[in-house]
């Protein structure tokens, strides 16, 4: 497997604040890689360094085997968290400009833009200014600006934030499709269900540090089957009597129960049966959300 993105011992400071602290991770070709973490954890700064917008204070970043540089920028398609286009510029002119800045020739840029506009059924918007487009339309244009130069690597910073369900689903399909074409995708998010559905590898950020990383499936396995999914009918009071557990998710007839040290699933089942009608009792791997919370909590305690 060849390394597409190689981040080694990277740190970045802004004044006295440390935004990224000794972070290392590797992204292999053809992967979908998820950067997770709460706001302010250092995800965007890391992404900007990979994009060669910022330079790390220490450590190194290699893209496709070479140090990050203006050349590597041309092989990356970047969709920033805060979207933006020139409001007073026409759609076609704007896309041409951005694609040529990525190193495409005039003709190649024109062909690619025509292809993508056609694919999004947006060819009629060519002569429109961005300010005339709806939010969903300008998001499509933004996406075309990211992909028009046919990069080998896609980097999406919070790609699903602000998308309606239809666009969100479409973006997900495109990401999976590009993966099939052999592209490498790195995206940051705090929405766990998308990571669970799409990512191969993840890296979890907290307070500037990479606190957990690796293959998503192995990570979940390493936490073991320590979670109980419980569907029931009746009084939920018994949940409060359980000891040695943490209840992650709770509603009138559902609970996700995390077993802590020494707790026994059989004991819980007995308590539950005694007080409510059980419709489902399943022992599963923890959800990513749960892993996220417990890891973040652990690092806080460690600090």
């Amino acid at each position, binding site marked *: 497997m060849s390394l597409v993105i190689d981040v080694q011992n990277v740190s970045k400071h802004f004044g006295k604040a440390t935004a990224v602290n000794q972070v290392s991770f590797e992204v292999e070709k053809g992967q979908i890689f998820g950067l997770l973490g709460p706001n302010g954890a250092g995800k965007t700064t890391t992404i900007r360094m990979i994009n060669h*917008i910022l330079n790390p204070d220490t450590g190194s970043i290699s893209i496709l085997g070479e140090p990050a540089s*203006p050349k590597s*920028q*041309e092989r990356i398609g970047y969709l920033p968290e805060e979207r*933006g286009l*020139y409001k*007073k*510029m026409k759609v076609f002119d704007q896309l041409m400009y*951005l694609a*040529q800045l990525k190193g495409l020739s005039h003709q190649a840029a024109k062909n690619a833009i025509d292809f993508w506009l056609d694919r999004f059924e947006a060819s009629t918007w060519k002569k429109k200014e961005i300010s005339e487009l709806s939010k969903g339309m300008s998001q499509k244009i933004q996406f075309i600006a990211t992909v028009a130069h046919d990069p080998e690597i896609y980097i999406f910073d919070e790609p699903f934030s602000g998308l309606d369900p239809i666009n969100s689903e479409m973006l997900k399909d495109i990401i999976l499709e590009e993966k099939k074409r052999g592209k490498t995708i790195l995206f940051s998010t705090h929405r766990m269900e998308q990571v669970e559905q799409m990512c191969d590898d993840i890296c979890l950020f907290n307070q500037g540090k990479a606190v957990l990383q690796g293959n998503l499936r192995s990570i979940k396995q390493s936490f073991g089957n320590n979670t109980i999914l419980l569907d029931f009918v009746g009084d939920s009071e018994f949940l409060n009597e359980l000891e040695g557990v943490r209840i992650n998710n709770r509603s009138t007839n559902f609970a996700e129960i995390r077993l802590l040290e020494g707790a026994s699933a059989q004991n819980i089942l007995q308590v539950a049966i005694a007080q409510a009608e059980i419709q489902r009792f399943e022992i599963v791997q923890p959800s990513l959300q749960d892993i996220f919370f417990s890891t973040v909590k652990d690092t806080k305690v460690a600090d």
Partner: protein
Amino acid sequence: MINSSKIWLIIKREYSTRVQTKSFLLSTFLTPLLILGFMGFIIFMTVSDNEAPKQVVVIDETGRLLEPLTQLNATRYLPITASQSIDEIRDQIMADELDGYVLFDRSFLSEGTPATFVHNGAGGITFFESLRSDIRDVTRQIRLEDNEVSEAIIEIFEERPALENRRLNEAGVDEQSNAFLSSIGGILIGVFIFIGLFGYGAILMRSVIEEKTSRIVEIITSSVKPIELMLGKLLGVCLVALTQFSLWIATYAGVTILAAPVAQFFINQRMGDLQNSVSALDATGAVANVPSDIDLSFLEQFSVDPLFILFFFVFFVLGFLMYSSIFAAIGAAVDSEQDSQQFMTPVMLPILLGYMLNFRIAEAPDSTFAIVASLFPLTSPINMVTRMLVSNVPFWEVLLSILLLILSLIGMLLLAARIYRTGILMYGKKPTFKELYKWIRQA
């Protein structure tokens, strides 16, 4: 290293999106029209003497001033008729039938009692001055006569020696010079550079703020270096300014080149008409009172030396790049135009200073202070150009001024690029001067 083909793309965008705007077209084509209109108005005002003749009644108690005054100007000075009383005259003045009256007291000549001019407020200072000059001339004449001074002395008093104003040009030939005209030109050109530096600097700053707030800057910097974006923007906007100035200079040159032939054409036509009518009236062909030629050489004073235009562009471009790199840095440091005020003030001061000094420099272009202002890089883009128009500046001073300007331009660019690079990705709180200093120090 700097990628020049990407800078070129940025320049093209900055340029083409601006020259296509309505405001650019409007300001480019309306400004010369406005200036032409203004110049035409000034010329019209100075040349035309079609002011309504004023009528002033002379109440002459000395009995000696009325006659010479009416001889001097019969339409202006009217005698008082026997039936009129002062009150009637006052009523007529109130009713705007008369413009005023002058009262000479019996003792005006003997004891020097001041004469009084009573009027309805029309006429203004020019009319008052011309009235006073008339009275002075007439009084002097009477006194000379009273003292039986010889003709020779009277002639001495009437003499008006002329002073011709000629300036040595580079070829060593003296030519007609109009110091007043070149001073006006110097002030005007200074105003143009001032407006250019400040106006286009503000346009650039606004565009940097817009890129920052619309967040497109993050996409751009994922393709080019911040310094490349900044240079591209500076050069693009600079080209827009140069385009506008070139169009104006071309218009001006066109007008001054065409002015003489056009004027000649109309004069010839009128002379032709005149000659026709004269010959129709008088078969002897008496054309003695028709001027054979009218001197239009004064129009040459409006023509501009191409070398001067070159230096004008050099100083404007260097000054623009220097100031606008600061404007770009300010735009990058703030999130909105309101926040930029605090940083604008220290930048505005030297430009304003250069602008203010310009009026003194147009008057005294070779004073020590003018030389200093035209060498000091923060004011030289305005002041040197004015000096060059008004006076003959030694070539070494021009070169030194350009050199100093280039050095400070490079310094400013380097400082500005550091602020710009950090600022465009910073959002939220407006930075303090101390923080800007930190950004500059960060390697």
